Every structure is written in structure tokens, then in C-alpha cells.
């Protein structure tokens, strides 16, 4: 059975070109980048080259880029780091209700530590309520953290507007751009972003490596204590192969960005169109236009997302429900609830995220499989039976 991988928001396959540039750093150029001898110095150069690549894409200075172990570490470092470094100025943080757990759980932890957090609501498409954001700003507000694009429904937030509000009020603005980098052009200057998190494995780079941009002069407390690496902000011997991979991956992603986006958007639109045509009683979640090119999130009424996923897996298809943790909580996704879906509809949701390696044939296979599985599951559902007996109205 062939695997059809449609969970590119969860992670992506490492691009062959990325892998190629990483390989020498395992067994040939293995020196510690902090050392003074040649194989150390060469690695220092490789790291700084990668840092420059990231800085160029984000339009920031390379000494504003710090390498981390990934998106969650970047989010933790930015939010906790800025909060603790600025607590003499205030203890209020603003974020949204649809953030990734790396942000939400970090905020919850800060609440236990004396900070106050406002969680701003979103509209039915998942777009942040800017009026509510403005109204919730206090004299003590030190940080706004709003994701660039949502990981479940793909909605892209009005980052420029948020940046302007933050700048005007003198509040630091962090954005979790883990889903956005590799899909959207980002200019931290134009967008007034003070801090940004990204992760390599979302754009065909390796896992375990990410980066954090923090604007010069924004104070933040370091997250990992120890050696002086990353300009004394993040201790630990540098993951040279990972950093080199991240640099190559971000370079490739932005070299072919338009082409890449056009391709996956076309496949995504084809998928949604086919599902809408062939399966009744579905709901497409998220904004139709302001969304990531490869993301789709569809609720299939009268069906449990979990059963859908397991059946897809048995056919070799990798997709996900609202969140990545399918075996965990029974609670429906906090994102789908935040856009106002009732529990029973949120439960039957499927995220299909398309990447550059997917083909139309794969989409056809997935749609055919979905038609069959959805029909079978609905035929077992008493709610469906009742719904059809009542003439299928409401």
C-alpha cells in the first residue's frame, strides 16, 4: 500500500537538496563551532551563512536571529523572555484564542506567575477581532502575541494591522509564524514585527531546528542557561547540520515561493471542489481567501473525525483532525470551537494540508476514499438516519 501524505502542516519531507547540504556536517565537518581550530571555524561560518539567509528572508539583521530547537522553543523563549524582561513595565499580555498550544500553555504558565493574559476572540472564519484587541490594551500591556497563520484552519491574520496597533501603543509584538514561513512573504520591518518564531520542518527542512527573530533592543531573558552560544541568549552546542539545513530550506522555499504556492493552492482548490461536489452536508472551515495555500479543513456532519482518520490511515492516507494530538483529548479543537462550530460538527473535522510533493492522482484517491468512508460511517450513524428520515432538512 502506498502512503499518501497530506499532513504537511504537521511536518514535511526533507527536500533532497536540503539533506545533501546537511550530510557533511555529521561525519566530516563535525567540529564544535565555538572552537578556534579550522574545522570549528568553518562550522561557525556555516552557521552565520545560514543566519544571514534567514535574516534576508525576514528583512532583519542577522544578529537579530537566534537558532533554537524548533517552533515551541522559539515561542516559549519569545513570550516568557519578553514578559520576564519587561515585568517592571507591566504584567499584561494579549494573545488570541486560536494560538498553538506552545503559545497558549506558555501564557497559562505566565498567568500562574502573576501575569494577566487577555485571549482575543476570532470571527467565524478565524480572523482576529481587531476592535477587541484595541479595547483590551491597558497601560500595563507589554506584549501582543498573535499567530501569523493558523495551523488548523489556515486563516491568515491581519498582521500588518496588529503590528501598527502595537507600534502605536509601544507594545512589543510577537508572532508565531511557524505555519506561515515558507508560504507567505514576511517583512518584519514593514509589518512592525518585534519577534517571530519559525520552524524548519514545516518548509521541507529537518526537525529539531528553528529560529527566533527578536528585534534589536527588545529586551528578553534567555531561555537556556549555560555557554555563550547564540550571542549569550541560547546555551548549547549548535546543531550545525540542522542550522545549515534550515538555511538551505528557507532559501529554497522563498526562491520558488510563487510557483510553490500556485501549485499547492491549485491542488487544494481542486480537493475542496471535489469534496463539495461529491459529499453532501459538509462545511469548509476557515476563510476562503485569507488562508494558507495548502490548507483545507472540512467538517463532515454526522461523523467522528477520529473514525475518519483511522479509516484513512488503513488506506494509507495521512491526514489529521483539528489538532495533531488525535489520541489525546476528546474535546474538540479549541480553534474550531472559537470560530463557533458546535461540538458535534467540530468533532467531524478533517485537516488535509497539501505540500509540494503531492499530485492530482493522490487527491483523486483521497476524494474517492473519503466518499466511500463517509458514506459507510454515515450509514452507521443513528443521527444520520434520523436526519434523512426527517427529510434531510436543517
Amino acid at each position, binding site marked *: 500500500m502506498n502512503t499518501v501524505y497530506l499532513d504537511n502542516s504537521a511536518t514535511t519531507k526533507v527536500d533532497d537538496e536540503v539533506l545533501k547540504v546537511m550530510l557533511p556536517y555529521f561525519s566530516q565537518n563535525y567540529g564544535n563551532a565555538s572552537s578556534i581550530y579550522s574545522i570549528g571555524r568553518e562550522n561557525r561560518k556555516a552557521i552565520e551563512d545560514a543566519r544571514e539567509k534567514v535574516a534576508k528572508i525576514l528583512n532583519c539583521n542577522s544578529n537579530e536571529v537566534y537558532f533554537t530547537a524548533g517552533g515551541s522553543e522559539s515561542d516559549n523563549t519569545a513570550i516568557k523572555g519578553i514578559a520576564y524582561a519587561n515585568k517592571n513595565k507591566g504584567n499584561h499580555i494579549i494573545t488570541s484564542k486560536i494560538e498553538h498550544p506552545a503559545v497558549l500553555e506558555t501564557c497559562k504558565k505566565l498567568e500562574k506567575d502573576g501575569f494577566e493574559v487577555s485571549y482575543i476572540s476570532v470571527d467565524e472564519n478565524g480572523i482576529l477581532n481587531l476592535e477587541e484587541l484595541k479595547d483590551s490594551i491597558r497601560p500595563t500591556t507589554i506584549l501582543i502575541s498573535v499567530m501569523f497563520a493558523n495551523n488548523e484552519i489556515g486563516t491568515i491574520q491581519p498582521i500588518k494591522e496588529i503590528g501598527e496597533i502595537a507600534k502605536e501603543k509601544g507594545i512589543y509584538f510577537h508572532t508565531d509564524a511557524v505555519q506561515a514561513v515558507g508560504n507567505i512573504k514576511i517583512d518584519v520591518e514593514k509589518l512592525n514585527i518585534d519577534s517571530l518564531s519559525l520552524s524548519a520542518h514545516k518548509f521541507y527542512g529537518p526537525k529539531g531546528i528553528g529560529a527566533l527573530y527578536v528585534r534589536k533592543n527588545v529586551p528578553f531573558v534567555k531561555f537556556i542557561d549555560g555557554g555563550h552560544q547564540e550571542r549569550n541568549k541560547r546555551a548549547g552546542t549548535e546543531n550545525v547540520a540542522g542550522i545549515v539545513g534550515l538555511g538551505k530550506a528557507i532559501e529554497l522555499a522563498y526562491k520558488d515561493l510563487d510557483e510553490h504556492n500556485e501549485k499547492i493552492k491549485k491542488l487544494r482548490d481542486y480537493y475542496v471542489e471535489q469534496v463539495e461536489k461529491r459529499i453532501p452536508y459538509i462545511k469548509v472551515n476557515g476563510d476562503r481567501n485569507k488562508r494558507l495555500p495548502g490548507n483545507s479543513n472540512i467538517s463532515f456532519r454526522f461523523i*467522528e473525525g477520529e*473514525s475518519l482518520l483511522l479509516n484513512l490511515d488503513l488506506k494509507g492516507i495521512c491526514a489529521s483532525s483539528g489538532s495533531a494530538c488525535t*489520541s489525546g483529548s476528546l474535546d474538540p479543537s479549541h480553534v474550531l470551537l472559537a470560530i463557533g462550530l458546535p461540538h458535534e460538527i467540530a468533532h467531524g473535522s478533517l485537516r488535509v494540508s497539501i505540500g509540494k510533493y503531492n499530485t492530482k492522482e493522490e487527491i483523486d484517491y483521497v476524494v474517492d476514499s473519503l466518499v466511500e468512508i463517509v458514506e459507510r460511517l454515515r450509514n452507521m450513524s443513528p443521527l444520520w438516519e434520523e436526519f434523512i428520515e426527517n427529510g434531510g432538512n436543517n
Partner: protein
Amino acid sequence: MNKKVLLGMSGGVDSSVAAILLKEQGYEVIGVTMKLWEGEIEGSCCSLNSTSDAKRVCDYLKIPHYTLNFKDDFNKYVVQDFIDNYKNCRTPNPCIECNKYLKFGAMFKKAQELGCDYIATGHYAKILYSEKYGKNVLAKSNAGKKDQSYVLYNIPDYMLDHVLFPLGDFKNKDEIREIARKNNLLVANKPDSEDICFIPDGNYKRFLEENSNIKPQKGNIVNSKEEVLGKHTGLYNYTIGQRRGLGISSPKPLYVLKLNKKKNQVIVGVEKELYIKEFLIKDFNILVDIDLSKWTSLYVKTRYSAKEYKANIILEEDKIRVVFDEPQRAITPGQSAVFYDGDVVVGGGKIV
């Protein structure tokens, strides 16, 4: 195409070996572990570690494994029922509820959704074709004391054609462990789980106090003539037939005979008084075609660890009356009475 089986896996040696056996028999096996209880603690049958043990076994056997979240159903049908029973002075057997609502309820539904032909578990029981009843029946395994057919009597009749018990022919656990060792399963030497899975330390009194509104309400221990003999610490701390922990000195050993909720009394007496000849059951499930309107002679087992004894049963409105040939000891409300015709499970229900 091979028949598809959904196998419930706890991570223990029994269900792991069941996976091996089903695979050897040519089934397409899907392993699932039910996530049942929030406060999962190391060492109980369904702890996080067990889930990963089950996953590791499935990895090794190259079969898919999923974790199914049934916490809500488990709490509703098993944990709350357990608490309600103690509130009403009954002694529950939560494994019976779990089998009814979770394994042969929610898990069966999941099996259908996944297009499986069967569900299977590592229970020591059999499904076999009975000439006498002209259908598939639930029957005792070959495991003697370890047999678990008693806790399975609530399997719905229509499901019997879709259930497999791969361990039914084995005589003891050593044989199972031997298979596990031969296959190099890491779980081969894992100890048996004995306690109630959601009370891994076995302290059900503390569990009740922490998870329900049951509070220790002291009262009198009395004899059948309502003469006060001592004090009790709360009715939920006592069960029928209990001798220890009464704190009463008496020339003859005293046993708990009854719990009176209204008067908040524990009624005690001598062993002879524990023996009862007849009782009623409710919420019964009958698995074979018998005429309940007439007296039927069968063997009846009134708790998991008891032997079965000869009795006659008859329907009385929505209950069944059970009359033993000889009086039996400590018939306890809340426990189940299960009827056997030879090795065949005829049915069973809750002692009123």
C-alpha cells in the same frame, strides 16, 4: 481478503499473545488500546506505559495500533456506576460494566466503523457453536480458576458471531507467557494486574472519599434484633460476608449480613445466617433461547471467585428468581449472578 479483527490491547501479556495468535491464524489485526481514566498511574492495566507497551508489541508484529479515547464513556458507565453502587450499599464489579459498555459497546462500534469483521480480547473465554442451542454461544475457557466467562455475560446476543477469544483453549497463564517468551515479547514477564484499573493502589475507600460526595458517616453495628454491638465508620466500608475489621469481640465470629441505608446500620450475625437459598436478579442478559416462564435447572455463580451451584430460575415480572438447591453463602447485592448450562453461559444479571 483476510478477515479483519479489532483487538483490544491492554499492554499486558494476555492481549499481546492474543495479537500473535490472531496474526498466526491469518487475520488482519488492528490493535487498539482504550484510554479510560485520567489519573492513570503506573502499574494499573491501562496506564500510559501500558499504551506504549501495546504500541511496541504492535510495532513488533507490524500491525497498526490506535489509542481510543473512551474516558467520557468510562467515567459515565463504569466509574459513576461504581460510586452509585457504594452509595446504595451494593458491591459492584466494575469489570462487568466495562465489558458491557466499553469493550463490547464503544469498542465494537469502533470496529464496525473501521470495517472489521470481528472484535477480540485477551479474555479467558470461548465462543463456540452449540448443537443444543443451534447458535454461537459464550462458554467457559479451559483455564479453570482463571476463566473469565463470568465477567462477559453482558455481551449482546447479536455480537456473539463477531467476537473472538484467542486464549480460550489455553489451560493456564504459563502457556501464554511461554508463547510471549518464544516471540521475544518484552511484556512476557509483566506481572498480572489484579486491582481495579482506576484504583491501582486498591484503596477503594479513599477513592470513594476523593471522587464522590460519599463521606464517612458513622453509625451502629447491630445484630438481627437491632441490639447495638459497636460502631461502623461508614457503610461503604463494609461488604456482605466480611468478618475482619468490625472491632467487636464476640464468642462466635461475626459477619456482615446486610447494610441498612435508611437506618445507617451494619447488621451482623453468625456465619450460619449468611446462607441464603433464594434471591432476585435484575438487568439481566440472556444469551440462549430458554423459556424463562418455566422453572429451568442450571448452575449459578454469584461472584467471580465463587464456584457455581445448582439452582432453578424463573421469570418474575422484570426480574428473575434464583432458588438454590442448597443455601449459599454471602449473596451480595450489586454482584452478578451468572447462569451456566455445563460450560455454556446462559445469561446473568445483577443481584437485587
